[in-house]
Every structure is written in structure tokens, then in C-alpha cells.
């Protein structure tokens, strides 16, 4: 019997004029590991809320059709009963955790439903999610990845057969993301849970999932085994889903006639190695490194900076120890390192939000200590990871204008309009920033960031929490922005962004700078990437797997390199 059966389901939110889900029919078998993909607003999250009974039990609206979980109609079942069948982890999972300690939160639901062995169940769930030995810790002591695992454990504790996760790895570095998916795979294989993930990272879908469901305009377009699904490159791209880079490369090579037409495309590096075996090796000449540019004038400088945080208990936690770094005018710097390596701390130091415990920070040749916040604001601008915190006014026009207006910048009105046009926001100018889509929010926050023409622009994770299509759009915007910005530093986990945008890469690890140079210097250094746990884009790894010397960072580069190989062989 199918564990989830949806019959002719239509649902409209209260006050909305058209249905989010429109006559959906679907059957999901027990033991599946299903990825749900689709455009923004295609009803993915709504579908998940239908499955755990939040709709229609707690969210009203027009509900037609039937949803059966294990043969039970969700409309007849109690939410408590459904919670024991379906576990749900939100995208903003930190708000889902309501208790202050780890074990307490994991066992909270079991306690509430009056299960006498609630603590044992909580412990078991924590063990299944890889959080054993952390039972008595407080929530704020956990990292982002661990917090997510805790939210998962809270859902697992009730022993549901179905687990639903809404974008589980959106905010995580690859190390933590692998850990989450490792746990999910174990839950799927060892404990026979049916797992549904909403996911845009198709590389992870290829590596871990069994099936893919494409939702389009509130309907289930198709439901296919993963490799077959990811091979439908055009159809996915039409829904703004980007298949793994390996698949895209194979697709392009297929179009060039280098791979046999028809059939399934490779989706993982392993499959890629198989598929690309037939392609002749290119004669690869490593391009001469571009002549070292004369570094420009110094914009900011860290001199032996040390920082430590007060901790709630015990010794202060040291983030930086004698960190030295110089930023020059005209550079586009990517700052990388795992979660907790101190990327955000470094940015907070530069804007004067944190004060170093030792050492000196110079901004524009002058010590930060001697400058007032207003002075600093004229030279430097920070765009937060969460754009919602950038919006302090009730329309994005006011938000963009605010800094210029209060400083009486000449022609601030025209400049605001220019910025709105440049970031394609003119039509949205009177809307509240928070109510925009992810990509629009991001563009608006970038416009706010450059409003004052800062000599140094800092961006914290500008592509986090975005689907791939929007990420590409932001990347394009960032490349466009190079024309108007002087020096930009981006802290990010997004290695595609690093490869396609940065001309200098700074690697943070263990409280100091461990790598600093061009992308070739950083990604070409295996020892460094392994030590720090950074992972170059998949296509880079693919290229090297086929040909050790190849350093290609984008799909077109890969296609050109290996496509050329063929011509050379002829």
C-alpha cells in the first residue's frame, strides 16, 4: 500500500484568488527518498503542510479532494495522530525549537502526548540523528547544522514513518550538508523511513534521493526515478531547476555529438567518469598565470587582530588569534571557510560592531578606534546575510533612499530612482521589502548597500537561502555591480559564486588566514581544500577526475576544454 496517497487535491489559501494546489494526484511508496522540486511558489511547502495536517486543521482555506496517510484521511485524523505518522522540519527550523536544552526539545513532543518513556524516545531520536553526547547542552551552544539535526530529532522522536524536510541545507556549508544527508540516508535505509525533501541542490538529489517529483503551477508534472528525472534538462530548466553541473556538461557534450544521443545522462561524478571515458583527453596547457597585478592602495588592514567572545560558562571562546590581512583597492575578494570559522566576525570587526581584544584594524589608513560610527558608515557598507534585517522602512524606495536622505546627498531622489532601475526594482518600489520574493529581497538589499558609494562593500552570504535560478540572477547582478563598486568582499559557502566572481580568495580556518590567492592557487591546492573542508564546484572536481591537470570552474569552460579535446584528436 502506498504510504501517501493524494486524490484530486486542490487547495486555496484564505483570501487568495487562485488555488496553490490544483488537482494533484500522487502516490508515494513506503521507503522512498523523494525530492520535491519546482519553481518558487509552485506549492511545494503547501503540499508538505497538507501532508502533516496543518492544512486543513490549523490553516483554514478551501480544501478539496482527499489525502490519505497510511490509509487514513487527514481530515478525519487528529493532528496528534498525524504527527506520529508524519514528521516535519521547517525551513526556518530554529523557530521550531521551543525548549532551551537538547534532550528536552527532542523529547518534548513525546512528553506532550503522554508517552511514559519520553526521555528514552528523545535519546533514541538524538542517537539516530547523530546528536548523542549532546543531550544536556543548551540550544545556543549548537552550530547551525546541529540545530537542524535537533529539529529533525524532535520530529523523529514521535516515531513517524514519513519525514518531510523543507530545504534542509540552505544555510549550511558542504561539510554540514553532507552530515544532514548522511543522517537522512541512514534514517531511510536503516530505519525504513519515507523521506521527502524540498531541495534545489540537484547535486544532493543525485547523490542521495531515489525519486524526483516536479511540481508545476500547483500540479504534479511528473514523478520519476532520479537519474531519469535529472536527465530532463530542458524541462527542469524551464522550471528554474538546474540539474547537476555534470549533467549539464554531459547535456552540452551530447548536443555537440560527443556523447551518444538519447539515454540517461550522468548525474554524479562517479557516473560522469564512466560517461566521459569515451571522450579523448584534451592536451591541456595550464594557462600562464596572469601577470601579478600591482596591488592597489590599501583600503583596510588587520594587524595582529585577536578576538574572543565571552562565553556563558568557562573560558572565553577565541575566534581569531593574531590575524593579519590587507585589502586593496579594486579587489573582489571572496572570504571562505566552514561555518564558525569567523567570516561574519571579520565583517563585524570591519564595521566596528565588534572590538578586537588585541591588535589594530585600519580603515582608510586610520585606526577604527579613532573613528565615529558615522564616519565609518561613509567608507564601508555591510549587507547582512538575512536581508529582512536590512529593511527598516515600509517601502524599498524609502529604504534605499534613507541613508542618502539623512545625509542630504545631492540629488538623492534621482540617485534612488537610478538604483531602483539598476536593480530592476522600479515596479516594486513601494512594496515592503519583507514581502518580496527571495531574489527581489536580495537585490533590494544590494541596492541599499551601495547607496552611499562605499569604498568597501561587505556582503555576508549574498546567495544563501536562494534557489539556483535566483542565485544565478544574483551572481549576474554582482558581476554587473563591479562597474560601480570599488572594493567588495563576500563571505560565502557558494563556491560557484567564488569561482565565477572573485579575483582573490581568502581562506579562514582555526582563527587565522590559511590561504590567500587566486582561485587556481586555492582550489588547485588539494592539501588546503581538504584541510579546511571547502569543496570546489562539482564541475571542477569532475574535470580533475577526468584529467588531473584540468582546472575548469564553469560548465562552459568544461565543455570548451573537453570539446576542444575532440577536435585536437581529429
Amino acid at each position: 500500500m502506498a504510504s501517501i496517497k493524494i486524490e484530486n487535491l486542490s487547495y486555496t489559501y484564505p483570501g487568495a484568488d487562485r488555488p496553490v494546489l490544483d488537482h494533484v494526484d500522487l502516490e508515494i511508496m513506503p521507503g522512498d527518498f523523494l525530492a520535491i522540486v519546482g519553481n518558487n511558489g509552485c506549492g511545494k511547502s503547501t503540499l508538505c503542510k497538507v501532508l502533516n495536517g496543518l492544512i486543513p486543521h490549523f490553516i483554514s482555506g478551501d480544501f478539496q479532494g482527499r489525502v490519505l496517510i497510511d490509509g487514513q484521511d487527514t481530515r478525519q485524523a487528529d493532528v496528534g495522530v498525524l504527527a506520529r505518522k508524519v514528521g516535519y522540519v521547517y525551513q526556518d527550523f530554529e523557530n521550531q525549537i521551543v525548549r532551551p536544552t537538547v534532550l528536552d526539545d527532542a523529547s518534548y513532543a513525546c512528553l506532550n502526548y503522554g508517552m511514559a518513556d519520553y526521555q528514552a524516545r528523545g535519546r533514541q531520536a538524538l542517537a539516530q540523528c547523530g546528536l548523542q553526547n549532546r543531550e544536556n547542552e543548551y540550544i545556543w551552544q549548537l552550530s547551525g547544522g546541529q540545530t537542524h539535526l535537533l529539529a529533525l530529532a524532535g520530529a523523529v522522536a514521535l516515531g513517524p514513518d514519513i519525514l518531510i524536510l523543507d530545504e534542509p541545507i540552505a544555510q549550511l556549508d558542504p561539510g554540514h550538508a553532507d552530515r544532514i544527508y548522511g543522517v537522512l540516508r541512514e534514517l531511510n535505509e536503516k530505519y525504513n523511513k519515507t523521506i521527502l525533501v524540498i531541495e534545489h541542490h540537484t547535486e544532493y538529489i543525485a547523490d542521495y534521493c531515489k525519486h524526483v517529483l516536479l511540481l508545476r503551477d500547483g500540479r504534479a508534472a511528473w514523478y520519476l526515478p532520479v537519474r531519469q528525472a535529472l536527465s530532463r534538462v530542458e524541462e527542469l530548466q524551464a522550471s528554474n531547476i538546474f540539474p547537476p553541473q555534470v549533467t549539464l556538461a554531459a547535456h552540452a557534450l551530447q548536443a555537440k555529438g560527443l556523447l551518444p544521443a538519447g539515454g540517461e545522462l550522468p548525474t554524479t561524478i562517479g557516473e560522469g567518469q564512466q560517461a566521459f571515458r569515451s571522450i579523448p583527453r584534451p592536451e591541456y596547457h595550464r594557462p600562464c598565470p596572469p601577470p601579478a597585478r600591482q596591488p592597489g592602495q590599501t583600503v583596510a588592514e588587520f594587524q595582529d587582530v585577536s578576538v574572543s567572545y565571552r562565553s556563558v560558562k568557562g573560558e572565553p571562546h577565541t575566534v581569531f588569534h593574531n590575524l593579519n590581512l590587507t585589502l586593496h583597492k579594486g579587489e573582489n575578494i571572496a572570504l571562505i571557510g566552514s561555518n564558525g570559522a569567523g567570516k561574519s566576525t571579520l565583517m563585524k570587526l570591519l564595521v566596528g560592531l565588534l572590538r578586537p581584544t588585541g591588535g589594530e584594524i585600519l580603515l582608510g589608513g586610520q585606526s577604527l578606534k579613532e573613528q565615529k560610527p558615522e564616519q565609518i558608515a561613509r567608507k564601508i557598507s555591510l549587507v547582512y546575510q538575512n536581508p529582512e534585517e536590512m529593511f527598516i522602512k515600509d517601502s524599498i524606495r524609502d529604504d534605499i533612499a534613507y541613508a542618502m536622505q539623512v545625509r542630504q546627498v545631492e540629488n538623492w531622489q534621482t540617485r534612488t530612482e537610478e538604483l531602483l532601475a539598476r536593480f530592476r526594482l522600479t515596479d516594486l518600489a513601494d512594496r515592503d521589502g519583507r514581502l518580496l520574493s527571495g531574489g527581489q529581497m536580495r537585490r533590494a538589499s544590494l541596492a541599499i548597500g551601495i547607496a552611499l558609494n562605499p569604498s568597501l562593500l561587505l556582503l555576508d552570504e549574498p546567495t544563501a537561502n536562494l534557489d539556483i535560478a535566483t542565485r544565478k540572477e544574483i551572481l549576474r547582478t554582482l558581476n554587473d555591480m563591479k562597474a560601480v563598486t570599488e572594493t567588495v568582499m563576500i563571505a560565502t559557502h557558494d563556491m560557484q559564486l567564488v569561482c565565477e566572481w572573485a579575483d582573490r580568495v581568502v581562506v579562514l580556518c582555526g582563527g587565522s588566514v590559511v590561504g590567500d590567492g587566486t582561485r587556481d592557487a586555492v582550489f588547485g591546492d588539494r592539501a588546503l581544500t581538504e584541510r579546511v573542508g571547502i569543496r570546489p564546484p562539482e564541475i571542477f572536481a569532475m574535470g580533475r577526475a577526468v584529467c588531473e591537470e584540468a582546472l575548469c570552474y564553469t560548465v562552459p569552460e568544461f565543455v570548451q576544454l573537453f570539446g576542444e579535446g575532440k577536435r585536437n584528436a581529429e
Partner: protein
Amino acid sequence: MDAFQNKQVSQSQKLMVFVLTMSLYGLATLFTELIPKFQVGIVEFSVEYFLFIPLVLAMLFDPLSAALGAATGELVFSEIMLGQFGGLGELEKFLTVTIGVYIAGRLVRDPRNTKMVGVAAFVGTGAQLLMGTIVDICKVQFAVEDFEAVAGLPESVYATEGFAFLNDLIFSGILFCVLPTLFLVPRLYGKIEPLLGMNPRTKETSLGLFSAKTAAGCAVAFLCAVCAEMLASSGFELIDWEASWAESGTAMAVGMIVAAVVALAVLMVMRGKAQTAKVK
């Protein structure tokens, strides 16, 4: 099914409003606790600077949930978290804040009507302040023995409390409650409700006029507040504590000491036994 379902929906929406108001107002009162009490001459500006937060939310959402959320938030964040819990007396604060916010929330039938919002905010704040003043005067009257006999004390208390009330109402009441409320309500209206999955309040969906029953409820709650405060800080004439103990004080105290020492000795021995048992 549908009626039941709607009830559940509105229950969970009420909980959302409660959680929202509690977090925000709690956070805000945490800061008020840290702002040094602001004294100009003899007048202390100790008004609830952030009362506009629950006022705004009570006007947009369910007034009672917002009012209770605000009072709970203050109790939890600023009293319990910072160890400033004043015992039974906190009940007074809890109830006056609840009543003030609730009245303001009920008065607004259409948040788009600015006049209505302004008047409601002023009335709500005024009610809260007035109740606080009455309680304060009673408190000093009971707490200081021979209140009437102390030269200059009654006059000073009436004068300062009365003046503080007027001053708070005009200065802080308008500056910190009415103006921010007028600023925030129109901006949030229609934007914040969908975030909680609700429809904005309109004339049709409001709770209707302020009934006699509601007023009576508020009055009873206020009486409770006064009583609580009196109990907390008054001389508690019912128990003539001092008198009984003055008569046979020494004997009773010695008796108590003996009892305490015996109890302690027994407990120590039992604890020792329990521990050795555990070790074995």
C-alpha cells in the same frame, strides 16, 4: 467539523498573538529595566516606555491575547529573568497592563481610522497609569506606619503621585504611546496579518462595542490588583504577628531553635545513611 475546525484555527491564531506580544514586549521591558529611572527634580519618569507595542498589536489582533501576552512578557523577561520579581505585587502590574491594553484594543473597531486609534491609545495608557497611581497611593498609605502622623508625608505622596500621573499621561503617554501607535498601526495594517495567516480587522470583524460586561470584568480585575498590592505591602492587620511573639518571645524562639537543631541532626544522620547506602 467546520465549526470545530474554525475554533481550532482561531485558538492557534490567538496563541500566535500571545507569543508575538510576549516576545516583543518582554524584550522591550528588559531594556526599560536597564534604562536608569529618569529623574527630573522630584518627578520620576517611570512610565512604561514601550507600552505602544502591545497597544499596536491589540488594535490589530485579538485584544485579550495581546494584553495577556504583554503582561506575561513583562513578568517573564523583566521580572523573572532579571530576578526583579516583587512577589504578589507583580500581580498589580500584570492586571493593570492587561486591562489598559485590552481596553485600547477593544475600542478600536477599524484600525484604518486614525482618530479612533489615537483616542484608544490615549485611553488605554491613561487607564493603566491611573490604576497604577491609585495603587501607589494606597501602597504608601499602608506600608508606612502612622502615615497620617508623619509630618509632610501625606501631602508629599499625593502631590508627587498626582503630578507624576499627569506628567506621565501628557508627556510620556503621548510621546511614547500615542505617537508611536499612530505611526505603527497604519504601517502594519494589512501587512502583518497575512504573516500570521489572518485577515485584517475591519468594522465587520471587530469584536463589537465595549459592553457593560467587559467593563465589569475590568473593574473586578482592577479590584483584584488593588487587593493583591495591599496584601503584598500592607501591614496585614489580620495576623497580629508581633504582638503574640513579644509576649512569650524568648520561650518560643528557644523552642524553635531546639526544634530546628533536632530536625537538622536527624536529617544529617539520615543523609549520611543514605549516602553510605548509595556507596555500597
